[in-house]
């Protein structure tokens, strides 16, 4: 299984780095990648149906229990087939849609890496693996959404999508760590079979919140939904792929995957059906106000995602069954509608629904595809959508709040029918405007995929048991073991559910005739934009940025003296706080008697030099005085038999003085730049800091933690490292790695100085 992911990544890397040489010449051949993977995945259908579950495990960080483990069960297979199946059509479609685009190969590269990440996401058994692929889908979708990178709106949308989904990804990581902490494994299967009841865990609510935020951001649930309409700035194949079958379904997949672990609890169910219901109604209502075809589709996608979350929230086996079926139903018709939108945009140059009409006469196959997709979308007989909608109603009728939930579902479906009609039928009927008379049927690589999807939507509707036995029942077995749901059927006879379906379709069609999309309505909606989550969250983001820049400007104000002041004050505060709370002072004057004449005279020299450095009027003299202090310290090292330190101090001090002189020599004459008050303040801070450091150094000598280490080095430096100079042995052997890094830092510093002073950017 891992090879499928690797194959995608290898192809992607090849295309991104070397693709330019191909000049798009083999783009349609790339369709073979998803196609062959699709064929490969179909070979699993038989095994899965018989209850086999192939697994693959690669150790990655065994010490932390992190593995790359892959597991092919019904749910994974369902999603893999969707990803590669829709992927095949999208690849084929793109080869014509973006034909001649300069970066076509790069586009395929991004698409492949995205597909690989999606496959990894659904195949991973390890939550850590899941998280990594989850983030990889966010990152690769960033490149896909921002593919038209010369367009500012496109870049903003890409960033927005990345910010929202990346934000959710962090919570997934939190959940992964928490799961690992509670269950001491990252494998989802092991967690399920560990016997731990996570709903009883004290961390249950935290886990729920983490998983929910991850899923809601990815699957565009209210109030995180706004990145999805924004992402419509992407080329249409991307929208098709991301929003029908892959990216946004990842959140749904996550919820399904964790149903056995976290589901069947009041919190889980209530949150999910509440958020799902709000999302599906809110987004479905929004479709009424859009005139851009892709805008309509974006909001109807959000609405469908809401339905799915809602169904998972109901949580009965019928509801889960309905969710699984509806995932496929939606993938088929939504991909078709997106592809059709792409064709319309490509051929007529507009996606405005009020301008498009009568195109049936010039592009019949596309119109047929639109009709088929619309039938499935509206849930009319004999489409697969009908089966899906039936199951949804069945699930809501069996739920605890039967009446309320059924009304929600019916209203949403009525509105979705309206949305499907606007895209699937409206552009093709009526009279053909004169400016569209030159429009012609595009290449079959464009119209074949949506037509195929439409036909499949009908085929699965007529024979729903094909998919049910192969995919849905095994998937359901994973989610809710030992549950029984009746097999899928197209015709259930004249039941209450059928009545609801008829009501839905009738009211939906009525709505279509009563309400026409218009630009006026879209403008009206704009007036309440200030209440939309998008505006609120953007406001929050802006506020965040403003606070950050205020904060930065306060501390990073560009004055070196202020930086040093901040650092020293902060350190003084920390050290002072520690010293006051933990240290008692006592002075022992007797120990002063041990002082020798050398020490006293060195100390005197230092004191004199310090005062000279402070009060002198010459900069060079101050530097020289500082040098004297340094040499005096050097002498003290000699008295206390630290020759290595003394030598280093001596050479360093010499070099420091040289450096100071070099820099200061060129400065203007010594001027009094600070007033008396500032100098008193600085003096006070300097004395305070100096005293604190002194007390701290004395304190360090009192608590001798270093005893053991010192002894270790003393005993082993010759035995293990064949050296008698312990200081040197520590530097080059025991702590050699530290030295290695330190000299690297030195080199970086030197390069920095060199770069700053020598490589000035020339003004043009």
């Amino acid at each position, binding site marked *: 299984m891992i090879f499928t992911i690797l194959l995608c990544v290898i192809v992607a890397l090849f295309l991104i780095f070397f693709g330019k040489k191909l000049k798009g010449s083999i783009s349609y051949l790339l369709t073979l990648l998803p196609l062959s993977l699709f064929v490969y995945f179909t070979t699993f259908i038989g095994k899965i149906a018989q209850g086999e579950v192939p697994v693959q495990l690669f150790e990655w960080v065994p010490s932390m229990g992190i593995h790359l483990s892959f597991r092919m069960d019904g749910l994974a297979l369902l999603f893999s087939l969707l990803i590669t199946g829709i992927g095949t059509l999208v690849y084929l479609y793109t080869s014509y849609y973006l034909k001649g685009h300069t970066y076509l190969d790069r586009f395929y590269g991004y698409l492949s890496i995205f597909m690989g990440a999606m496959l990894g996401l659904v195949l991973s058994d390890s939550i850590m693996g899941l998280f990594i692929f989850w983030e990889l889908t966010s990152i690769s979708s960033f490149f896909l959404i921002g593919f038209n990178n010369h367009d500012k709106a496109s870049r903003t949308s890409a960033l927005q999508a990345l910010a929202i989904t990346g934000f959710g990804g962090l919570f997934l990581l939190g959940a992964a760590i928490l799961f690992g902490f509670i269950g001491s494994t990252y494998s989802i299967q092991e967690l399920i079979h560990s016997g731990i009841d996570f709903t009883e865990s004290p961390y249950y609510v935290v886990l729920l919140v983490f998983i929910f935020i991850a899923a809601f951001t990815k699957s565009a649930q209210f109030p995180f939904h706004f990145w999805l309409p924004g992402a419509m700035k992407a080329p249409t194949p991307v929208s098709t792929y991301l929003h029908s079958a892959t990216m946004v379904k990842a959140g749904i997949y996550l919820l399904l995957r964790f149903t056995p672990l976290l589901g069947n609890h009041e919190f889980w169910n209530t949150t999910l059906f509440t958020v799902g219901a709000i999302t599906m109604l809110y987004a479905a209502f929004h479709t009424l106000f859009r005139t851009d075809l892709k805008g309509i589709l974006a909001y109807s996608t959000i609405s469908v995602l809401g339905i799915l979350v809602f169904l998972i929230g109901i949580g009965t086996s019928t509801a889960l069954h309905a969710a699984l079926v509806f995932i496929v139903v939606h993938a088929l018709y939504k991909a078709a509608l997106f592809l059709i939108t792409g064709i319309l945009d490509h051929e007529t140059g507009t996606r405005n629904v009020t301008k498009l009409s009568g195109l049936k006469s010039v592009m019949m196959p596309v119109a047929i595809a639109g009709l088929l997709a619309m039938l499935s979308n509206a849930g009319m007989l004999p489409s697969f959508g009908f089966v899906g909608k039936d199951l949804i109603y069945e699930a809501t009728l069996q739920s605890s709040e039967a009446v309320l939930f059924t009304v929600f579902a019916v209203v949403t479906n009525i509105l979705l029918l309206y949305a499907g009609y606007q895209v699937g039928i409206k552009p093709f009927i009526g009279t053909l405007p004169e400016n569209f008379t030159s429009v012609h049927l595009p290449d079959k690589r464009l119209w074949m995929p949506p037509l195929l999807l439409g036909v499949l939507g009908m085929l699965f509707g007529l024979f729903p048991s094909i998919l049910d036995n192969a995919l849905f029942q095994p998937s359901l077995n994973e989610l809710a073991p030992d549950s029984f749901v009746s097999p899928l059927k197209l015709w259930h006879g004249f039941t209450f559910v059928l009545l609801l379906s008829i009501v839905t379709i009738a009211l939906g069609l009525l709505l279509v005739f009563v309400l026409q999309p218009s630009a006026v309505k879209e403008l009206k909606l704009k007036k309440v934009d200030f209440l939309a989550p998008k505006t609120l969250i953007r406001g929050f983001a802006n506020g965040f940025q403003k606070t950050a820049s205020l904060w930065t400007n306060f501390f990073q104000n560009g004055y070196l003296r202020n930086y040093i002041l901040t650092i020293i004050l902060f350190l003084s505060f920390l050290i002072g706080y520690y010293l006051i709370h933990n240290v008692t002072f006592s002075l022992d004057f007797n120990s002063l008697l041990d002082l020798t004449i050398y020490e006293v005279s060195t100390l005197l020299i230092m004191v004199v030099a310090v005062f000279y450095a402070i009060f002198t009027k010459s900069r060079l003299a101050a530097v020289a005085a500082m040098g004297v202090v340094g040499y005096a310290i050097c002498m003290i090292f000699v008295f206390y038999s630290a*020759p*290595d330190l003394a*030598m*280093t101090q001596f*050479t*360093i001090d*010499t*070099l420091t003085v*040289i*450096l100071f002189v*070099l*820099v200061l*020599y*060129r400065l203007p004459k010594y001027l009094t730049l600070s007033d008396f008050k500032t100098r008193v303040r600085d003096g006070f801070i300097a004395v305070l800091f100096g005293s604190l450091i002194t007390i701290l150094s004395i304190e360090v000598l009192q608590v001798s933690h270093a005893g053991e280490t010192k002894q270790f080095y003393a005993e082993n430096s010759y035995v293990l*490292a*064949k*050296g*008698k*100079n312990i*200081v*040197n*042995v520590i*530097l*080059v*052997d025991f702590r*050699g*790695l530290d*030295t*290695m890094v330190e*000299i*690297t830092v*030195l*080199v970086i*510093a*030197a*390069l920095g*100085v*060199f770069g700053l*002073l*020598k490589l000035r950017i020339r003004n043009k």
Partner: protein
Amino acid sequence: MKTIILRTASTYLLPLLLLFSVFILLRGHYLPGGGFIGGLIASIAFILHGSANGQENTKTLLRIHPGFLMPVGLTVAFFSGIAGMVLEGKEFMTGIWFKDPLPVIGMIGTPLFFDIGVYLVVVGVTLTIIMTISESS
């Protein structure tokens, strides 16, 4: 500071100081000294020569830009680290030694080469920084 005395002295001092720095470098494992101090002494030697005879003369004397010593030093240090891995399959930075000491130099082992790397890096870094600053100002 172009005095005759200093200029004359520095001509003799340079080789002496360099020799001294190598001496400090080599004795480091047993007695006070080592690559870091050795490197600093060598840089001081060059800087002294530079301030007496002018930066340009020192540069011609060096032939290469001192900056080139930095990657060389880093490479030497790094390879002394992996020598143990390659030759004896031990962990990174494990010291390995020749059995018998060499006359004058003493025991030869990877820590010595590591120290030589440090020496080169220190000379490179110090000279690069000081020469750059003194040239630009």
